[in-house]
Every structure is written in structure tokens, then in C-alpha cells.
């Protein structure tokens, strides 16, 4: 029922925006309709994940000073993930048993969002709201931003703030039990049922994000951008379904700190190579947080025109991160870096030290004719991309077995129609 209500909300948002389109077209003004369809697939050792993500967005500009947007997106998730994580030391002392277990995952995430942008002279303000729901997670997200152009539009300064009010389903634990005796959530049955299931409770997550950026045009073919991002998360941040073996015969639900402050500094430079009729985009990012995860990212993209309408893109990205301070591949024992790490434990491979390499190809066909197509459409765009993402885990294992075939494929189809 809740899902139907959210779909009705999304539909009403689109309907409202559609009615704006009708009035907009009547006055020969601008609207843009986008739809994207993305497939994510990975099947590393013992687990797998398939996600189909459709989305639609509508932007309407009834007057120059105002743009209104509304949209819907979804994630249809199925696969299998690790339910009980153990490491090599525990597996070595239990050679006859399979100490790692997996569980099937099925979920359906819906997001409805809307917002507006106001423009006056060289200043732009925007505000957006998004509501997201899935069986075990709900989110209300608001964001607001301002941007100004300076020095004949050669300099842009922007600032954005976002706040999430999120809720995650969790298993009720016995009041006297310490975290080392917490049981993991078995499934999402009874989640958000207003106390009807005594074994279910709701935990809060508050997320504050702040971002400032400075974009600069230096020459007619070179532009740079510097971005600083800070985010503070407070609340339940573990995977409620996952348990970790933390001692002989003891498995406990993941237990991680409630607070996390995250910061990132990114720089990008875009060059247009006139002889090649291509844009070269190079970027780098450093990241650090209070869980002691530090990372560095370098990426490059080359996008070349073939004629006026068609362009092709090739991209590459390298990423490396250190593990969280409390991450261990085996909390039950073993020599360093294995062994317990204080009061917290996690089986999350995203908190382990690892590298990733991404390579991708893309193509875009964009048409903006002088005359309107069918009398109403002033242009359309068709984009297709395929990316492969390889993960190389330094220490993460499943019971001592390396995670082989840890490679994800992401395919994306995007269509845009401008009226």
C-alpha cells in the first residue's frame, strides 16, 4: 500500500509538471523530457547483484526566470549478498564448516523528486525535494543552492546544502544485550508497520551535506573547477542484515560508529582540442573521513565529435582507498592485520582497503535542427554507455578465499526530448 501511495505521489508530480508543459507549449516556451534506463550487474565469488534503474524527468521553463522540474526513478534489485562474514583465521579452525553464508536480496526502491530554479541576472537559486522508499529504508531529502557568475561569466561560484531525514528498519534487540549479542535483521517483513511487529524497529539517520565550488574559464578552450564537499552522518549506518563472526561461536550484527564526518576536495580541468574536435576532461579527488578511510581518485575522459551530431567518448578511472580504522578481515583472531579492532566490527567490503579500475565507452547522437521536428520538438538526444568496474581487494576475503571475478558492468541508455 505504501508503495502504491508513493507511485501515486510520483504520478501526481509528473501530472502537475505535464500540465505545465501543455501551457508552456501553447506559449512556445521550453520543456525537456528525459528518460534513462540503467542495468548494473556483478557476480563476484559467492554473491551476485542485478539492478535495473529506470528514471524519467521533466523540466519546464515557463518564463526565463523560472524552471520547474519533477521526476521519478527506481531501483529493482535482486541478487545474493553476504549474510554472515568470517575471515581466514576462523575458517582455519573450522575446516569442515562453511563459515560464510549468503542470503538472497530482493528490493524495489522508488524515488519521486521535484524542485525549481530561479534566475535573476547572474544569480541562480535552486531548491529540490526527494522522497525515497524501499522495503527497509525511507528518505526525505531537501537541498538548496545558489550560484553567481562574476567577471563577464568567466568565474562561477556555487554553494549547495542538502539535508536527509532517513529511516532504516532494524531488528529489535533485548534491552539488556550488549552489541556483541545483537541479532541481524532476518528480512524486511513487518518493517515500518507502526509497532505491529515487536521484532522490528526504526532507526534514524540524519545527513547534512555542504558543497562549495569555483569554476573558472581561463582561455576560450580551457576551464577548471575546484569542489569542496563536507558531509556529516549521524545515526544507524551498518547493514542491518549482516552479521560478523567476532569470536568462537559468536556472531553479531554489524556494529559501526553512529557519527561519520566526510570531506572531499576535487579538481577538474577541461581542454578542448580544436585539431581533434574533442574535449579532454581530467579530474582528481582526495577524500578523508573520521572513520579513517582515505582515498584518491584520478579520472580522464576524451569525447570527440564525428560530424555535428554524433560524438563518442572513452573514459578511464582509478581509485584507491585505505580501510576504516575498525575494519578487520577476521575479528575472531589471527595475526595482525587480523584480529579484533576495539568496540566496532563490520563485514562491509566497502570499508576494506581496495582499488578499483573503471573503463568505459559512450556515444551520443544529438539533433537541434533549425526547424522544429513535427512542429513541436526543437531537439532530441540519444546516449548509450557501457562501463566495466574492476575491484581489487587488498585484504577482504570470504573465510580466507579471495573474492574473484569482482567486476561490475553498468549499461546506460538515455533519451532526451526538448520542446
Amino acid at each position, binding site marked *: 500500500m505504501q508503495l502504491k501511495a508513493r507511485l501515486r505521489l510520483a504520478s501526481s508530480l509528473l501530472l502537475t509538471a505535464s500540465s505545465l508543459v501543455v501551457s508552456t507549449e501553447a506559449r512556445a516556451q521550453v520543456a525537456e523530457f528525459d528518460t534513462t534506463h540503467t542495468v548494473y550487474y556483478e557476480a563476484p565469488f559467492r554473491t551476485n547483484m542485478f539492478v535495473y534503474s529506470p528514471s524519467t524527468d521533466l523540466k519546464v521553463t515557463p518564463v526565463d526566470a523560472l524552471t520547474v522540474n519533477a521526476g521519478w526513478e527506481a531501483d529493482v534489485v535482486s541478487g545474493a549478498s553476504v549474510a554472515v562474514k568470517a575471515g581466514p583465521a576462523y575458517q582455519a579452525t573450522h575446516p569442515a564448516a562453511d563459515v560464510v553464508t549468503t542470503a538472497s*536480496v530482493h528490493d524495489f526502491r522508488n524515488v519521486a523528486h521535484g524542485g525549481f530554479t530561479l534566475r535573476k541576472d547572474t544569480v541562480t537559486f535552486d531548491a529540490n525535494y*526527494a522522497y525515497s522508499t524501499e522495503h527497509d529504508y525511507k528518505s526525505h531529502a531537501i537541498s538548496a543552492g545558489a550560484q553567481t557568475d562574476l567577471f563577464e561569466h568567466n568565474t562561477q561560484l556555487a554553494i549547495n546544502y542538502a539535508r536527509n531525514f532517513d529511516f532504516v528498519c532494524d531488528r529489535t534487540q533485548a534491552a539488556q544485550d550488549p552489541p556483541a549479542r545483537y541479532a541481524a535483521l532476518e528480512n524486511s517483513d513487518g518493517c515500518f508497520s507502526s509497532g505491529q511487529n515487536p521484532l522490528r524497529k526504526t532507526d534514524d539517520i540524519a545527513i547534512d551535506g555542504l*558543497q*562549495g565550488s569555483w569554476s573558472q574559464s581561463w582561455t*576560450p578552450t580551457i576551464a577548471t573547477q575546484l569542489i*569542496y564537499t563536507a558531509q556529516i552522518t549521524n545515526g544507524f549506518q551498518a547493514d542491518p542484515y549482516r552479521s560478523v563472526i567476532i569470536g568462537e561461536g559468536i556472531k553479531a550484527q554489524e556494529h559501526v560508529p553512529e557519527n561519520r564526518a566526510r570531506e572531499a576536495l576535487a579538481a577538474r580541468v577541461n581542454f578542448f582540442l580544436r585539431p581533434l574536435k574533442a574535449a579532454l576532461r581530467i579530474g582528481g579527488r582526495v577524500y578523508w573521513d573520521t572513520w579513517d578511510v582515505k582515498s584518491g581518485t584520478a579520472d580522464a575522459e576524451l569525447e570527440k565529435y564525428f560530424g555535428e551530431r554524433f560524438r563518442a567518448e572513452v573514459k578511464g578511472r582509478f581509485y584507491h582507498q585505505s580501510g576504516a580504522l575498525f575494519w578487520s578481515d577476521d575479528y575472531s583472531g589471527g595475526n595482525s592485520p587480523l584480529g579484533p579492532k576495539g568496540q566496532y566490527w563490520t563485514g562491509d567490503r566497502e570499508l576494506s582497503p581496495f582499488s578499483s579500475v573503471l573503463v568505459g565507452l559512450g556515444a551520443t547522437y544529438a539533433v537541434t535542427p533549425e526547424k522544429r521536428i513535427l512542429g513541436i520538438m526543437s531537439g532530441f538526444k540519444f546516449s548509450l554507455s557501457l562501463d566495466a568496474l574492476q575491484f581489487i581487494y587488498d585484504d577482504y576475503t570470504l573465510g580466507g578465499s579471495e573474492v574473484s571475478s569482482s567486476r561490475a558492468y553498468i549499461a546506460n541508455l538515455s533519451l532526451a526530448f526538448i520542446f
Partner: protein
Amino acid sequence: MRISRPLWKTLFLAGFTIAAATPCTSCVTVRPQERAVLADPTMQFEGDPQASAPLNHAIENREGSYGGSGVSGGGCGCN
């Protein structure tokens, strides 16, 4: 919640750097008639948000880092 000192320090440094660098940018002038290439879709820092958002969403759910591209939120979808 109390914000740690290093975060404030970084915020101050970031603000100071931008404030100090902004006057230097006033002497850089790309005239309006020279901006055609800079306005090309291939030269936009945001790229094509519709096409890049799903890839960024997948990457953020598979890596321990965040930021440097946007601050908007909207749920998890990251089992």
C-alpha cells in the same frame, strides 16, 4: 552534534583559498564571442547529469568515499 576541529579548519582553508584566488580571476577575460567552445556540451563539468547519475550512484554504493560531484541525497538502494 559537535563538528571536529579538522573539519572547521578545512572549511576555513577552502574559503580562504577561494577568497584569495577570486581577485586573480578578474584579470582573466574570455570575451563573449570567444565562449562558443566553453558552452559546448562536451566542456560542461556536470556532463550529462541524466546519463552520469546512475554510474555515480553505483560507484558511491560500492566505494567508501563520497563527494566532489554533488550533495543531493535520496535514499540508499545499496544492499
